[in-house]
């Protein structure tokens, strides 16, 4: 896609018609897969991600198991058909990096000490990429972990803010990410106002950074609310097993 003339028009509308502080249409479904212990499917506009969790289960290879807690494995991967350009098969360096930062974010909220010598495996597959794949992936992974019954301190909600034509905007789409001036993914565990992931590509002044973070927090609290609604909806129809 060629660079559009303007990413924000004179009425303050972005390329997809949104205002600067509007999220894309979001869809969340819990428990979409049968073979995993927990799963979730999340859409942020054109970005579609599925996450699956297995665990606690035996650590493979065994010698990597830790005596006092579980290890958390995370694989963020984009399918070959998720993007228009040719995407190499297997894991690129970018995917290795995002797997790591997502894993570190999930580790901060998961009570790994409950399962010594086990592993909790998180798989994130991006099936269509339109910007914000790591934040959508993290949002989905946190729902999948909760669905699997893994004890957690809080859910994680994430969104990317950016700068286009000098303006700070919430929930970047792919065009804005490619042709804008900055892209800042932010993930939080909102209960204690903790930031669990924070990255920045491009340039922002300290003031823009502060305002961008505040904008991200606003988006995150909306996303957190949608996560809670999606989880309640799935589990409200099933009473737990009686004792």
């Amino acid at each position, binding site marked *: 896609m060629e660079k559009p003339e303007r990413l924000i028009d004179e009425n303050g509308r972005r390329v997809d018609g949104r205002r600067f502080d509007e999220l894309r249409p979001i869809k969340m479904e819990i428990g979409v897969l049968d073979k995993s212990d927990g799963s979730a499917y999340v859409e942020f506009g054109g970005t579609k991600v599925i996450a699956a969790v297995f665990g606690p289960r035996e650590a493979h290879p065994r010698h990597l198991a830790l005596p006092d807690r579980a290890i958390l494995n995370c694989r963020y991967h984009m399918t070959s058909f998720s993007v228009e350009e040719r995407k190499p098969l297997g894991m690129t360096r970018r995917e290795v990096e995002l797997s790591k930062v997502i894993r570190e974010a999930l580790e901060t*909220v998961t*009570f790994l000490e409950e399962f010594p010598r086990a592993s909790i495996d998180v798989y994130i597959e991006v099936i269509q990429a339109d910007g914000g794949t790591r934040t959508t992936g993290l949002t989905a992974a946190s729902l999948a972990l909760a669905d699997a*019954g893994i004890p957690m301190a*809080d859910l994680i909600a994430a969104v990317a803010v950016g700068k286009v034509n000098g303006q700070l905007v919430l929930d970047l789409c792919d065009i804005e990410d490619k042709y804008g001036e900055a892209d800042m993914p932010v993930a939080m565990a909102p209960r204690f106002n903790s930031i669990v992931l924070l990255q920045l590509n491009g340039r922002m002044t300290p003031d823009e950074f502060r305002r961008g973070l505040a904008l991200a927090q606003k988006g995150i609290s909306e996303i957190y609310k949608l996560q809670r609604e999606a*989880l309640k909806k799935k*589990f409200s129809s*099933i009473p737990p*097993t*009686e004792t």
Partner: protein
Amino acid sequence: MPIYFSEHEVVLPGQLLSDNGKRSGEGTYSIGGKVYAAQIGFASIKNNKVVVIPFKSAYKPSPGDRVIGIISDVKPNGFEVDLGGYLTGMIRIPDREEVVNMNLKVGDVVYVKIRESGLGGIIIDKRDRIRKIQSGLLIHIHPAKINRLIGRRGSMINMIKKLTGCEILVGKNGLIVINGPTPKHEFAAMKAIEMVENEAHTSGLTERVEKYLKELLEKG
């Protein structure tokens, strides 16, 4: 203590449950003097503590649990027992001769009781008789459904045992051994257990399983 949840409300990880940080039980955690939920489930108060009964959870061995395991290793100082999933228990027997006399081999199925579980690993009580299971059908269901299989004061499992005439050993870790008069009876017991596993969350299950069993046994 002030609580922030109601009886049939689904609680989510991170949800504030109470202001009394000292009273946090299973499925919860406490920070800054307050108790929060750690899993999705129903919150309630048990023994003066706030607990969350999760909809889904992995099996966590507790002292006193009776479980079924498979001997996975014989060591000079005891036996290793595979309890399913990633869990391995240890039967510690310091006397080498006693280990030999017990006559347990790798692959033997045993019914044992857990004495301790924690960072030191899962220790199996050797004072309580370690029962070797010689024969039967070994099946596996999700540990979270075991309580429903047993039922209130054993109502469900006793009904299945009575109707099928089978001896059924239930391990809290999800492993079950069935020994019956004929393969038809054993199969019926297995199908009943499968039905409980699939419909554990529904009501009126005991009556429906009873009806299903009667139909199965009649048909032959």
